[in-house]
């Protein structure tokens, strides 16, 4: 009763859960334009995920699996369904999630038939695969009801149905590790568990078997996505899009959200996007007005490019940005290869390369 009264009062006064504040990009997240200066390795239609075995770079581009060596891109093979996640296995193998519903394990990238296939009925939106220490795979599933590409609807419906699975190639058993997450998107082994991005709760949680998820990094101003290990210890955490006060407000407006989802083309929803500025039908916010021919980089981002370097404890060290006036938005994957960071900017459909030399010194001195 008291809780109900308090919630009503909060909604009426805009306090508590009804507040729409978004943390600012500050400290380790202080904005820069590093991603705008990244070199474009490849432009493709629908880049989704990256994987590397240390020498080869595999790129999931829609239904095609591409390989990039020495600046030359070549198609390795193609599948019936779009690839939704990619993971390199020890010994040259490759794990591929297809359409979010199946995970195929291949002995090598061009093997005809998958060695193992997981097609659990619980799978709906497998969006990331990661290798755990004991040769098992960790898979994150964003939503039990919305498909891999329908994540904006998942956000707008306030779904909390993300799950984490452990896939054991030896026994072919699928074990659920966690459920009820706000869009699990991206995982990386950490100790005996896994760090998992919980996008809709803007945080990174540590999922361990038999325990409830523990918050590692919370109150992000962005929606975190896939993460990979960094060479010098720690992680690269990507953020596929950023939060704005308007979206936070719309998330608290059930009437508007319902009608928006029913009446408006999803491309023009008031929802985060991977790219923006393509049509005047997109929602425009006050600070987006071009003044004297300039769009302000500090305007509320409808799409944003960000990758955060975390230390071994999951705390941010520094970050690389592409701000509102940039184009390299929608960073969904980042892997370290040699001395470079290779990234996917899904917004413009680019595979980017950024040299890491000097970055740590520049930001952490």
């Amino acid at each position, binding site marked *: 009763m008291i809780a109900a009264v308090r919630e009503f009062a909060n909604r009426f006064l805009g306090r508590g859960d009804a507040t729409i504040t978004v943390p600012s990009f500050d400290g380790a997240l202080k904005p820069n334009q590093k991603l705008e200066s990244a070199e474009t390795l490849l432009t493709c239609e629908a880049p989704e995920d990256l994987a590397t075995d240390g020498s080869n770079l595999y790129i999931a581009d829609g239904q095609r699996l591409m390989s990039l060596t020495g600046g030359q891109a070549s198609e390795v093979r193609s599948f019936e369904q779009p690839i939704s996640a990619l993971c390199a296995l020890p010994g040259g193998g490759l794990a591929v999630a297809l359409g979010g519903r199946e995970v195929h394990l291949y002995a090598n990238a061009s093997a005809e038939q998958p060695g193992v296939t997981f097609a659990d009925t619980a799978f709906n939106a497998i969006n990331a695969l990661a290798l755990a220490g004991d040769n098992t795979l960790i898979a994150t599933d964003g939503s039990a009801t919305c498909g891999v590409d329908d994540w904006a609807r998942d956000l707008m419906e306030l779904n909390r149905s993300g799950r984490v699975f452990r896939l054991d190639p030896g026994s072919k058993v699928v074990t659920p590790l966690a459920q009820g997450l706000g869009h699990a998107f991206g995982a990386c082994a950490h100790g005996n568990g896994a760090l998992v991005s919980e996008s809709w709760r803007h945080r990174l949680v540590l999922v361990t078997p038999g325990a409830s998820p523990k918050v590692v990094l919370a109150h992000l101003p962005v929606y975190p996505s896939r993460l990979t290990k960094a060479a010098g210890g720690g992680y690269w955490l990507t953020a596929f899009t950023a939060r704005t006060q*308007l979206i936070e407000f719309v998330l608290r407006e059930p009437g508007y959200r319902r009608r928006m989802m029913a009446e*408006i083309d999803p491309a023009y929803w008031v929802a985060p996007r991977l790219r923006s500025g393509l049509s005047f039908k997109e929602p*425009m*916010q*006050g600070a*987006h007005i*071009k003044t004297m*021919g300039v769009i302000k980089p500090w*305007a509320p981002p409808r799409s944003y490019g960000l990758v955060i370097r975390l230390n071994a404890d999951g705390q941010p060290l520094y970050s690389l940005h592409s701000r509102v006036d940039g184009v390299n938005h929608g960073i969904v994957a980042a892997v370290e290869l040699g001395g470079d960071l290779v990234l996917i900017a899904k917004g413009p459909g680019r595979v980017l390369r950024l040299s890491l030399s000097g970055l740590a010194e520049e930001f952490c001195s």
Partner: protein
Amino acid sequence: MRDTLTSLRYRYWPDHLLGEILSKRWTETAIPVILLLIVGLALSRSIDNFLSPASLADTARQAGEIGFIALGLALVVIVGGIDLSVGSIFALTDFCALYLLDVLDWPVPAVVAATLLCGALLGAVNGVLIGYLRLRAFITTLITLIIYRSAYDLLIQRYSNAIASAFPDIPSWDFIGGGSVFGIPTVALVYIVVAIVGHIFMTRLRPGWHITAIGGSRRSAYNSGIPVRRTIALCYVASGVLTSIGALFFASRLGTVGGDIGVGLEVIVLTATVLGGITLGGGKGSVAKSAVGVLIVLLITNGLTTMNARGGVNRMALAGILLVAAMVDIRWQKNRTRIISKVYVAPTYHALPPPPPTEIGQGGPFEQNDKLRNVESIGLGRIEAPEDVILDRHDNLYAGSRHGDIMRFLAPDYQKMEVFAHIGGQPLGMAFDREDNLYVCIGGMGLYRITPDGTVEKATDETNRSMRSVNDDSRLRLADDLDITDDGLIFFSEATVRYEMDEWPIDGLEARGNGRIISYDTKTGVTRTELRGLKFPNGICVASDGQSILFAETFGCSIKRYWFAGPKKGKVEVVMDNLPGYPDNINLASDGNYWLALVGMRSPSLDLAWKMPGFRRRMGKRVPVDEWLFPNINTGCVVKFNEQGKIVESFWDLRGENHPMITSMREHRGYLYLGGILNNRIGRYKLDNADPNFVQYDKRWGKQS
């Protein structure tokens, strides 16, 4: 169904009035008046004969006496002080009057004069101490309260018997205390006269304004050259005089000098003052508030007495009321502007049908193209915010800038830029008259005229106040665009009467018909409001028939025609509605059609929000303006439409890089010149198949020799 209910709710329930009423200064008087009515009603129901003439006359006599004291205290409180000694001054002047009359047998006029003088002197002590010696008002008057009271006690010990034993029978003296004119007690009549004079003094005369100014901010008043010390001192003198007037009437009514006269009077008067809404902090208050406060307090105390409440209860009730009133007053003063700003913005229901298609491949008159890709820029980076552009007969180009200047680019290459005239406000729409005077709408200022030699003159900045508007809408807030008829009648639009120019997004959030169209006669100088209730009226163009104007409603997404002459005079007709964007300026094209700038394009998310006023109201409160859902004014286009409202052609810049925003366009000698209110350039576009000799005003009024 739900939409219908919402639309009816917002059409017939005037949400916007609440904020407008609250922002009026008289609401602070209205609340005590309502309280007075409630108290009066409650007492008249519970007590018999409460509203009988005898009872009312009795109340009026007491009200008059206390009213004078309350007026004095109000003056002191407004100037920023407080006077606790009024009760003692009351007692001393009461004694003074009766002593002079009964013991010294002075004539009545002399008694009156001497009593007033006595009050003035007692008040002057406070005045000198507080005004000139700058002692704290509270402590000073507390001390004089004690001193005066002690003096009174000493005096009545000696003279009370002499006064009590005298029974003067002087008709004029009795008339003061018990007389009445047409049934109204003398004291009430005198009070009404003093109150009216006091009201005029406080609201219309310089010293009254000085008093309010000092109460509002003593330092600022001093810096403005107001004699602060003298004014404050005189306020205390006035308080003493007004108290002595009350005492005179009291003396003639009762003729006693009992020990408890005036005891606790300061609490009654203070309660009345605060309850009436006179802020203890100073700077705010009025005679009416004081009178209302006195009436409330008297009704309550008399009501309680009639109901046989004991004296203690009576005083406790008063003290309780004083506490509550002071609390409400402080909270209200602190939060008033916040509350008003929260309730002032009142979004309403605004439904538009789905817009016509604009995508390439969908066909239709608005299909996007890339015709404007090759627009050249004039004054790139040198001019800022040219909302409108215009060319004179000698091909020179004029445009406004956000620095408050009219800039002139000289023909033929438009490289040389000079300040043609400095105005100070942001120039918006422009038009030349037959004598080559440039008329300009200035945001926040009104309609201005610039003669060919660059002299700036005000044409008009106010129109007739509408009777049904709560806000005073006579001043022009956002004159926007204009055109001149052949007879020298100027029609100009005012986008909104509720907001200032920089607040246009709030008007978009409201989406109410807040705008109007106004005419100004250049021959007679008369300004008149022609149309009201328009949704951000913007562009105006005199139609080719010379009897009507075409005007654009930006947030209404429509073009309408208004006949100012001819058989259809006074009528309004829709020319085009449900445009895919927000129409801005309209101008004549060389082929007899009209150019229209769409300053921005509609987006489905805002169209939906316009149907959900509650959503927008909450957005306005919770989300900062920079994050509001805005009308998209980053992309626009130019279209050409004919007399029947059919789109003939559209011109787009797909990338929007050359010329991001288009608020106006002007055809001149085969070129189209483009303005944009947030641009740093003027666009110039070569038209195919256009009359290379077309000059707008030559065509309308013939070539000038």
